[in-house]
């Protein structure tokens, strides 16, 4: 018996984090991307961006995605092009966290003072690398907040301090630094992983959604 898995459960809209893909950034990058050296931009479902989508957008421009430099095409750190992918979760709710209380498995974080934490969709099953706990920040309503405690399989906890966070508020894990989003570079610095494998994991497990 052989089976190729679907990338995700259909319609996992309730609590699934979303890998937003910018068609505009992809087109702009394609115009500047040099010829590929080594890796094929369509490998592993186009580095998690969706091979069918990437190939069709580039074909509409008269190009062949497989011949372009993947780092430039997808806007990975160091390529000086625009990030195509942004990972978004949602704040499902907030609650008080009192001084001395621990967070998540192993209590690797304890609150130094009374604060408020938000439960955010997105964990290591969707490519939010487990070692980002206590190291990375997310952006909610334009403000940065730290991920506290261990990243779990499907959720993370964020210390939001005094900031008012609406139920369902969008959380940007990474995106376009020009828009104030956390950069993928912050993730590569914190984890030692390559940007390529981070976007490949996120794009293949989060729910992909293309925006113009």
């Amino acid at each position, binding site marked *: *018996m*052989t*089976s*190729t*898995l*679907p*990338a*995700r*459960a*259909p*319609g*996992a*809209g*309730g*609590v*699934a984090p979303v890998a937003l893909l910018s068609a505009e950034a992809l087109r702009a990058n394609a115009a500047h991307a040099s010829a590929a050296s*080594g*890796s*094929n931009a369509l*490998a*592993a*479902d186009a*580095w*998690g961006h969706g091979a069918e989508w990437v190939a069709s957008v580039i074909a509409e421009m008269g190009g062949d995605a497989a011949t372009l430099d993947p780092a430039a095409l997808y806007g990975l750190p160091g390529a000086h092009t625009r990030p195509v992918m942004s990972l978004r979760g*949602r704040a*499902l*709710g907030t*609650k008080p*966290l009192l001084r001395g*209380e*621990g*967070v*998540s*498995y*192993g*209590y690797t974080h304890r609150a130094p003072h009374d604060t408020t934490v938000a*439960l955010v*969709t997105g964990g*290591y*099953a969707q*490519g939010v*690398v*487990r*070692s980002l706990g206590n190291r990375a920040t997310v952006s909610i309503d334009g403000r940065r907040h730290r991920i506290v*405690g261990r990243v779990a*399989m*499907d*959720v993370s*906890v964020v210390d939001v301090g005094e900031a008012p966070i609406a*139920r*369902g508020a969008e959380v940007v894990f990474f995106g376009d630094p020009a828009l104030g989003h956390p950069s993928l570079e912050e993730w590569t610095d914190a984890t*030692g*992983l*390559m940007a*390529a*494998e981070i976007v*490949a*994991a996120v794009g*293949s*497990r989060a729910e992909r959604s293309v925006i113009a």
Partner: protein
Amino acid sequence: MTTTYRVDLDAFSRNLHRVRAAIAPAAHMLVVKDDAYAHGLEPLVSRAFDEGVRWFGAFDVATGAAVRAVVGPEARIFVWLIGGAEDLAAGVAADLDLGIGDEALLDDLAGLSEPAGVARIHLKIDTGLHRNGIRPERWDEALARTAELVAQGRGVLEGIWSHISEASDADDDDARAVFLAGRDAARAAGLAPRFSHLAASAAGFARGEFREDLVRVGAFSYGIRPAGGPGEDDLGIEPIATLVATVTAVDAAGVHLDLGSLHGLPSTLAGRFDVDTPAGPRRVEAIAPASLSVAPWPEAAPGDEVVVFGRGARNSATDLAELIDTIGEEIALRVSPTVPRRYLSA
């Protein structure tokens, strides 16, 4: 590419029987979230149902509905992260058991205009993890709200549950005390939860008093041992999945395989582990986006298969995890869905 992730369903069955024996008389809730820990939802759920598993932990409503489609009406399916009123209504309609760890969801339930049925509520008390779960100081209020929903015929309080931190036995004992007090309070409020559940794999095996009625076991069912904890033999479980890659080229730099970090093998493992070859163990020297280089051995040839990790390999998922300070679950979950799964069964 011919890299495959081979899943041995007979080994999975043996683990299920081992879990059942270890946690008896509590029942096994098989956790199948995230595509059954990336092993493939449908084949694993189907096999588990055939082996007598009657509780499934699906995490979200979409996965719960997918499990329901596989197992039909007989099994109980528990979901515990619910995005709001619409998600909640879908969960009721799919006949799921609903883990509720946020008072706002009780309001959502009260506000559903035409619910498809009576919601089976499993109310979650926060016993220290501070993810979802109702804080103890708000628990009585949540119970009162739940009692109203029960009186209105909108819900039944089917369970009380929590997650524990596994930071230390003492921390878990503290968490259990909060949990038991929460259950006593529910009973005092006239609510009679049929099911209590607190433990996952590790505490379910090691600590009898944590088992209660149901133990939510994912990792051990898939043969994933805890990082820094007891070995597979001590636990009586076995890895069920193997990542197998194929030699594409052999040159002066080594033997190259058709598997890379884009397929989910963390590049931080480069230079840190060996794979078995016909000539003995050889080091994985480089992990590129779409390829992997192994130190050479005589007679290596394109088309040869190399077992990278898992069942039958030198290293399990957890062995690799320990090299980069993480847990076996993360190694397993990173295996890309672009790698074809192949299911073996005698």
